[in-house]
Each structure stands twice: as C-alpha cells, then as structure tokens.
C-alpha cells in the first residue's frame, strides 16, 4: 500500500549541546557550569558550548578568546572525540531498534521514518519518549525531538523546544505553524538566502509559500520551485539510511597544526601524514581517485587557498597522493606560516587492486598491503614512513560534518 506524503511520520532527533553535555556528564564538576569544548591541543575554535555558556553569548565557531570575552568564567574542555563517536554510534543503534530507516545527518542529528513502525510501537510520541529514556538512562544526556510529516518540518519541530523538547507538527497544523515563522528557521535557508528573500519582501514561510513561483524561478532558477515548496512545508525527500546513501564523492582529511609551520620540511611532514590518512581510507574501502586537492589556511586565520589537480590515472597509494599534493604546493607561493592543511582525493571510482607486472611496482604494492594489514591489526601509524616517526600527534583529531557511524565516512578519530 502506498503512503501519501502527508501520511508519513518522520522524526528528527537533535542531541542538545552534544559534546558539552557528554563532558558535563563524564565530569560532575562541570555540570551546571559554562563550558566550551574545543579541539585537540586547544588551537581550534569552540565546537560546542553548554547551555550555561550559551546564556552569555558563547557560540560554536568562536575562538577561545572570543568565548572568554563573552563569559569570563568559561571553562575550556579539550574534547575527546572517541567519547562522542561512541555515544553517537550507540544512539543510532537505539534508533535502529524502532525503524531501519535512519538517516544520520551529522554526529548529533538524525532523521527516522517511523511510518511503518507505528503498528508495533503505538505512536510516534511513544517511540520518541522511549528513545529519550534510553539515551538518558545510558548516557545521562538529553535530546530534542521533532515529529512531522516530512524531514523539513521534523527538523523545524526539533528546533522549536530545546533542551529536552518534544514537538509534534500535525499535517493539519502545517500552514498555521509556518505562517509567521521566519524563513531562516528552515533547514537550507542560510543567512545569504535570507537576505536575498528579504530584498524580495519575503520574511516569513507563509510569504514564501504564497510567492509567485515564476518570480522565485527568475531569481533562483530551478531552486525557485523548491523554495516555494519549503515555504509551504512540502518536502518529499525520503529518509535515506547510510547504506543507501549517495556514493561517496571524495576522501579527505585536514588538520589544524599544533603550531604554525613555515619550513618546507615541516609542511611536507604534515602533507605526508594527511596523504597516508587519505590513502589508507581510500584503500580500505576500495576506491581510487584522479583529482587531488590541497587546502591551506594561513596563520592569520583569515587567508587561505584551495587548489586541485587532475591526474591521468587513478591513484590510492599514499606516496602518490603525497607527490601530487606536493606538486600543487610547489605552484603556490607560501607567504606566511601555515595553521591548517587539508588533502582530498576525489573523482573516485571503485578500484580492485591488481598486482602490477613490473617487479618494482609489484614490491611496492605488496609493501603497502603489508603496512595496511599491520596497521589494521595494531592501529593507524603503527608502521609508517620513517620521516613521520618523530611526529608528535598522528591521525585525525577532528570529527568531520560528514562523519557517519558506518562505512567509508566512519573515520576513527583520535
């Protein structure tokens, strides 16, 4: 039996101040206090602020000094990514007890399509309360849940009450809820789009939904129709579990360096490390790519560049990725010390490894396979390039927005 779009029941779960809540739970001394979680070795920005800190205006993305300016008693906690990835993976397992249709949006957000689970569990509200109780009992933390006929509205609903909220938008309530709501509350309308719409005299979802489609299409092309539908609360996008997710289009890693580096020797060490991380992950999931991208952010924090090069053949061995990244680096004048480096392999295809015919290539491939197999068993960088041995910190220290609990996007962060 086919389900009409308005009969779907979609849930959006958003963990409240996720990293900060985990840290407050792990350390009772931090509970009830303004805390900000930052990345490793304290050089990154604030990744999450507790609700106590948010009251003072501390926000995600602020530099530590900015956070302390907002709240002088702000406690800075160096995040422990493994705690967060484990907790998130377990929470997704809880969700999958109620429906196989779970789409992980980020480490602290997911959609569930529970349309076909209601016969077993009674109602969407009951499922929501059961999931909340499971998360609270296991980790002591809270989430906000939105229930609605589609993903757009479910996310909107979960944002309406924080922390620890449960908001239901029924199909017959959609127009009333959206009528006076600001367009920037909609997922997918950022501040730039909000400004464009404001210039057209559109500030609320009700106004967006009533706007002439031709007018929106003239301004935004084919997206005009999508925006009009968003204003009306229409979103036919399915909840897509990770295994049915779009093909991965790239494999990349970046790192904020422990200290700014300016010598070529130091830059190359980090590039080699990043190339090994990209290569390892590409080989593990059997993909190879033709395009290498290099991203550099300089010490002044504001200036950066990104450049890419497409090769004649597909590669996934770390030394080849490294050479391609160095070739890009050599086309650019480095005018100041570097704060952040990133390497990405894209233009991917699935790649079954064949042993090369020529002895030197064959030996190299076998050596890479042997290194990978030791590192799979004993941990990344157990066997690595000699020039990396003295490097203090190796591996990924940042949870990317693309992190997922399974598959190629499941990066084992430090």
């Amino acid at each position, binding site marked *: 039996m086919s389900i009409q779009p308005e009969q779907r029941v979609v849930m959006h779960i958003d963990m409240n101040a996720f990293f900060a809540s*985990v840290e407050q*739970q*792990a*350390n*009772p*001394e*931090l509970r009830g206090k303004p805390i900000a979680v930052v990345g490793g070795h*304290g050089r990154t920005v604030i990744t999450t602020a507790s609700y106590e800190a948010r009251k003072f205006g501390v926000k995600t993305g602020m530099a530590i000094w900015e956070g302390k300016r907002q709240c002088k008693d702000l*406690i*800075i*906690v*160096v995040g422990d990514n*493994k*705690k967060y990835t*484990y*907790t998130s993976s377990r929470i997704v397992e809880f969700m999958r007890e109620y429906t196989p249709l779970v789409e992980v949006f980020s480490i602290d957000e997911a959609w569930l399509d529970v349309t076909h689970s209601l016969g077993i569990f009674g109602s969407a509200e009951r499922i929501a309360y059961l999931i909340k109780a499971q998360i609270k009992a296991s*980790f*002591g933390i809270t989430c906000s849940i939105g229930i609605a006929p589609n993903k757009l509205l479910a996310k909107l609903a979960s944002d309406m009450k924080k922390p620890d909220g449960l908001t239901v938008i029924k199909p017959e309530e959609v127009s009333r809820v959206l009528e006076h709501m600001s367009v920037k509350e909609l997922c997918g309308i950022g501040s730039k789009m909000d400004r464009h719409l404001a210039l057209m005299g559109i500030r609320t979802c009700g106004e967006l939904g009533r706007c002439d489609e031709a007018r929106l299409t003239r301004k935004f092309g084919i997206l005009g129709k999508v925006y009009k539908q968003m204003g009306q609360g229409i979103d036919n996008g399915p909840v897509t579990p990770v295994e049915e997710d779009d093909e991965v289009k790239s494999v990349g890693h970046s790192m904020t360096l422990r200290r700014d580096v300016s010598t070529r020797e130091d830059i190359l060490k980090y590039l080699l490390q990043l190339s090994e991380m990209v290569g390892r992950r590409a080989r593990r999931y059997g993909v190879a790519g033709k395009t290498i991208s290099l991203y550099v952010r300089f010490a002044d924090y504001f200036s950066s560049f990104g450049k890419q090069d497409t090769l004649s053949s597909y590669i996934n061995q770390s030394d080849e990725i490294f050479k391609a990244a160095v070739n890009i680096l050599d086309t650019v004048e480095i005018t100041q010390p570097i704060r952040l480096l990133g390497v990405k392999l894209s233009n991917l295809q699935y790649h079954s490894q064949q042993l090369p015919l020529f002895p030197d290539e064959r030996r190299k491939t076998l050596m890479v396979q042997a290194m990978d197999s030791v*590192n*799979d*068993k*004993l*941990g*990344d960088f*157990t066997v690595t390039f000699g020039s990396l041995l003295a490097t203090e910190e190796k591996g990924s220290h940042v949870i990317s927005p693309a992190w997922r609990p399974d598959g190629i996007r499941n990066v*084992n962060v430090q």
Partner: protein
Amino acid sequence: MNAQPVRIAVVYEPGKKPKPVWFELNRRQHKVIETTYFWKDRLGDTTRLHFAVSDGEALYELIFDPSEQSWTVESHRIE
C-alpha cells in the same frame, strides 16, 4: 599525564560491563565512588573500554585493553 598501568579490582557480572571498584595509583588506593561515563574505542582490531570514574576527589579515566588484559589510568584534561 600519560596512561599508567594500575593494580585494580573489578567486578565482572554476566551480561554487564565490568565495574571498577578500586585502583592503586602512586601506592595509594582510590575507591571508585561513581562511574560517570563509559565508552569504547578501537585501536587496530582491539576494542578498548574506557571508564570515567570519580574517587570523590578527582576524576580519572580507566582503560581496559582486552588484547593485553591490562588496565591503565589517565587523568582528565580541563583548562
């Protein structure tokens, strides 16, 4: 502080995760008053168990490595 091997008493119950009861650090016994958080991580093909525990005075992280059958302790970092 780096991870240090510890002498430890742990209760293992069927169907439950191990429960640290006390550990010795610098020749002093610390009784575990509360396990505040539990998580796992992967090192190669080994899954390690982490316990954030409080002795009522400070917070410690106890780590169990099943491949080595060893327990280590670390203190938590706060700035």
